[in-house]
């Protein structure tokens, strides 16, 4: 035991720099792991607490604009054995007027979505209210509804519009004028920064809300009265999947037919936490990269240490030390350096997390606790330690192979594992040939680094391709399903006939209309679930831009369905599916598979002859006219012009739609830049480690080359050229990895959005620049490391002193 301790102390003393590197990397891993795990757990817990505190229950539903559920609907819901309790808050949604925030300093900020007003009831759905110092939530006994003339707005308004208590929410329509002083900020899971259900929720005093209800009776076109439904399920049905639950709701009440969006508390919690997931994804990549670095260092230093101590190990073995003793020495010293670094990192994360928490509030609109989450962090670290252990044991097998007599006789282990590729040394490019020879002679030493470059480049490619996914044009053509720049939405055919010519004129005042076509939309049942149906005129079927397989439907016997639906129900092109609308049922042949971000991918498309076939009533159809204009950027102004002249018509434009996805898109962009920077930094670190190790291993050879008269510049070139080879090999491997897995990784990520396939587009110039930068970084560092050839005398290099 004493002998082991002596050897361990010698290890720490002689390999100080290795252990310091491992210590600092483990410190960083501990710090980042603790921060990211704490962030994800705390944000998720806070979102779960928010769901519980506000009593949103297990499921929620919203209804189509022209359907207001009845008492009978609610009674039917209540009667379901699956449902434990329902809560049905009333709401008034104002169409076509967003309202403003009037700041205390008279600045006016326009909101970007229709407002939906609710009465705040602390006994019913008590959304948590932020305390005045924004550091906690008000205790339940202090929670009360706003006073008359006051309003509560979501916490996300702070980050989005800079709202403060005392500002005023002002809604002015042609006939009405409402002003509410903002007296509280509520935590509303449907209103976090990243998502919104398409409305801005404003919570009022009950009497103010009743006033709005009265206005909605007078002016139902603009002030839509409706309900939200939240319900809990009985314990024995908690495991029923979401789709199955809504299927049961539909079968037992018919209500789901009228719902336009629905989901579970888990879905809300997921979306409320999504920004932290994105941040953590970036941090996780960094942690993995750091971990690979520590593996690389330990692998190198163990290997080089065994090489350097080759003779000594032989001597120690000769005097009776067992392989197990050496293993213990190496494992103890590396793992203890790692654990020590991790513990320090964990401790440092405590004050740092406190500093990060306020920023977390800005991005999540929730007050996550500032406590470090220890146990999951420890489990994460334990996994890293175990992987490290496996790698150490693999390296340590070399000790078992050392034969004492041979070690004592030879004194030094060979630098190269083979004589390398058979290449004739000759002029010209003698340096390159020598470099290739040395590279291939110890190819094993470079495998790790080549894989590191490959993984780095793979991450870079994934992140760069993400930046090309979230662009307005691709959103429409590939993800929406139909191309458009502007959409006008009509409640009926009459309204369309009455207004569409005028709208066309308004549009043509600013831009040319390249194309326009009608799309009808309604909920429909097929494959045991409710889906959104798009109906296009037969002549416009070529507007389906996201067909993944097959073709668009052409007549009343055909249908195209999303790939997600097809995969779930195992439907193939050519199969027949039954479609139900009210009491009418008909079979359709599936002619094509497409994708759409609409209805979270639960959608089908028909030709317009289906309207007759299923006897679809005109009043149940949303009629939308899609316009493709020659200047997309003017869409926002045109929408405003239409709204001013025709306030009853709802207009959507792609620019604003894009802006609503903007934060996520910007998130992807930042993520890409972050990964890019990390990759370059890591390329520098890993190439430095590698170059240092390889150089010290082959130092004597460079001394020999210098001794026989090879110029310093040539020697440095011989050394650094091989790092270009490592870089290039890594890039090729990374690219192949991306080629084979990139599409499916991105497509799996896209399933979250309801898409089944993302076409990967790589920004060529960025990829080329990144590749060049990575290779250049590798070469430059190697060149820098080889400066010793210049500085040291031959005698120092060949260690003959």
């Amino acid at each position, binding site marked *: 035991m004493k002998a082991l301790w002596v050897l361990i102390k010698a290890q720490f003393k002689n390999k100080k720099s290795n252990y310091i590197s491992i210590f600092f990397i483990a410190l960083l891993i501990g710090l980042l792991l603790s921060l990211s795990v704490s962030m994800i757990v705390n944000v998720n817990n806070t979102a779960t607490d928010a769901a519980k505190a506000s009593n949103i229950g297990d499921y929620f539903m919203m209804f189509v604009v022209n359907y207001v559920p009845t008492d009978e609907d609610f009674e039917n819901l209540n009667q379901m054995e699956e449902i434990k309790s329902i809560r049905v808050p009333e709401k008034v949604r104002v169409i076509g007027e967003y309202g403003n925030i009037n700041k205390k300093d008279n600045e006016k900020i326009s909101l970007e979505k229709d407002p939906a007003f609710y009465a705040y009831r602390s006994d019913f759905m008590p959304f948590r209210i932020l305390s005045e110092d924004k550091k906690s939530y008000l205790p339940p006994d202090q929670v009360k509804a706003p006073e008359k003339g006051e309003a509560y707005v979501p916490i996300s308004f702070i980050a989005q519009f800079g709202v403060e208590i005392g500002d005023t929410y002002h809604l002015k329509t042609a006939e009405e004028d409402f002003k509410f002083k903002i007296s509280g900020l509520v935590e509303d899971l449907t209103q976090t920064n990243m998502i919104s259900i398409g409305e801005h929720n404003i919570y009022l005093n009950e009497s103010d809300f009743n006033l709005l209800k009265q206005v909605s009776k007078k002016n139902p076109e603009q002030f839509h009265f409706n309900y939200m439904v939240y319900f809990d399920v009985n314990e024995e049905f908690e495991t029923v999947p979401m789709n199955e639950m809504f299927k049961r709701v539909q079968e037992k009440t018919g209500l789901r037919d009228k719902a336009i969006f629905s989901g579970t508390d888990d879905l809300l919690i997921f979306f409320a936490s999504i920004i932290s997931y994105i941040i953590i994804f970036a941090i996780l990549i960094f942690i993995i990269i750091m971990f690979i670095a520590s593996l690389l260092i330990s692998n190198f230093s163990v290997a080089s240490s065994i090489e350097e101590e080759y003779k000594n190990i032989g001597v120690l073995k000769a005097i009776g030390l067992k392989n197990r003793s050496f293993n213990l020495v190496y494992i103890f010293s590396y793992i203890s350096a790692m654990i020590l670094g991790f513990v320090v990192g964990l401790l440092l994360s405590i004050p740092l997390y406190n500093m990060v928490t306020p920023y977390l509030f800005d991005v999540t609109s929730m007050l996550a606790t500032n406590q470090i989450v220890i146990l999951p962090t420890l489990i994460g670290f334990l996994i890293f330690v175990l992987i490290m252990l496996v790698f150490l044991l693999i390296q340590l097998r070399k000790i078992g192979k050392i034969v004492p007599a041979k070690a004592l006789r030879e004194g030094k282990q060979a630098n190269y594992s083979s004589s390398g590729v058979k290449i004739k040394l000759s002029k010209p490019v003698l340096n390159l040939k020598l470099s290739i020879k040395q590279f291939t002679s110890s190819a094993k030493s470079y495998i790790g680094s080549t894989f590191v470059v490959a993984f780095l480049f793979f991450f870079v490619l994934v992140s760069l391709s993400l930046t090309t996914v979230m662009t307005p044009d691709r959103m429409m053509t590939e993800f929406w399903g139909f191309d458009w720049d502007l959409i006008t939405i009509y409640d009926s055919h009459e309204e369309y006939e009455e207004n569409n010519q005028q709208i066309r004129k308004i549009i043509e005042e600013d831009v040319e209309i390249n194309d326009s076509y009608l799309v009808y939309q309604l909920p429909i049942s097929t494959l045991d679930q409710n889906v959104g149906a798009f109906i296009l005129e037969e002549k416009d079927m070529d507007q389906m831009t996201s067909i993944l397989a097959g073709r668009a439907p052409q007549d009343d016997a055909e249908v195209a369905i999303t790939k997600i639906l097809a995969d779930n129900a195992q439907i193939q092109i050519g199969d027949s599916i039954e479609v139900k609308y009210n009491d009418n049922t008909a079979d359709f042949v599936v002619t094509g598979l497409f994708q759409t971000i609409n209805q979270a991918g639960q959608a089908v498309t028909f030709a317009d002859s289906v309207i007759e076939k299923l006897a679809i009533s005109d009043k149940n159809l949303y009629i939308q006219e899609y316009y493709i204009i020659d200047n997309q950027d003017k869409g926002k102004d045109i929408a405003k012009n239409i709204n001013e002249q025709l306030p009853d018509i709802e207009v959507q434009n792609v620019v604003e739609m894009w802006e609503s996805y903007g934060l996520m898109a910007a998130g992807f962009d930042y993520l890409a830049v972050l990964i890019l920077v990390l990759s370059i930094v890591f390329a520098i670190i890993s190439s430095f480690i590698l170059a240092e190790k390889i150089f010290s291993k082959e130092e004597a050879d460079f001394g020999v*080359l210098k*001794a026989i*008269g*090879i110029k*310093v510049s040539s020697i440095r070139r011989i050394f650094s050229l091989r790092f270009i080879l490592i870089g290039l090999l890594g890039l090729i491997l990374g690219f192949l990895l991306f080629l084979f897995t990139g599409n499916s990784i991105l497509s799996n990520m896209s399933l979250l959005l309801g898409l089944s396939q993302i076409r990967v587009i790589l920004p060529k110039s960025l990829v080329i620049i990144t590749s060049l930068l990575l290779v250049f970084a590798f070469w430059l560092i190697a060149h820098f490391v080889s400066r010793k050839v210049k500085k040291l005398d*031959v005698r120092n290099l*060949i260690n*003959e002193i």
Partner: protein
Amino acid sequence: MKGRLVLKEKILTVNNLQKIYESGDVKNHVIEDFNLDIYKNDFTVIMGPSGSGKSTLLYCLGAMESITDGEIIFENKDISKLKNNDLSELRLNKFGFIFQQIHLVSNLNLFENVALPGLAGPNRTNDAVYETAKNLLARFGIGDAAARLPSQVSGGEQQRAAIARALINQPTIIFADEPTGALNQNNSQIVMDLFSELNNSGQTIVLVTHDKKAALRANRIVYIIDGSIVSELKLEPYQASNLKEREETVNDWLVSMEW
């Protein structure tokens, strides 16, 4: 030849050479105020006790190590003042160096090791270099081992390849640091025979050794202690026939040096 005055051509002159190793605050004066001339065609052996600075002196003379002070004049130039590239030129074309630990590049075979310095120069064609390398290997009796890696041949064969490498560019001087130090008796004999043969054909050699047998090959032995010359012995050129007499002379001289 005896009694006839032969004017020898000085090809390397060392003036007031000083070499100090510094380690922190500690200064180790290895060579102090050292002066020496090396003559063309001479076989000069430098001897001395361990730590006397003889290897350091050889590395300094061979342009392998920088000096602290003084000058080393070769072809009218102070080589201690040369820049890296000029030093490389010097090592490539004018000096050949042979190490005690041989130092062949382990992933190159013997032929490649020998040819490498020839290929590194700009003036010779690939074929000319290959031809010279082949001839040298054959001359030194290792032609059959040309395609083998250093690890696949004996120490003696490795050292012969190292000598061939030193000769590939027909250097003016060959410096050898204990070239038999890592070899067995038989291989030492072969290597030293090679040095004698080279010297007989006009090659200037400066050799550092501990080995009295190796020293017998010289026509001039310089004995140094603490970095300074304490004595010098001049001998007739080596002939295998007068070995006994030569051995006695060298032995007596070394005894007087308290060897």
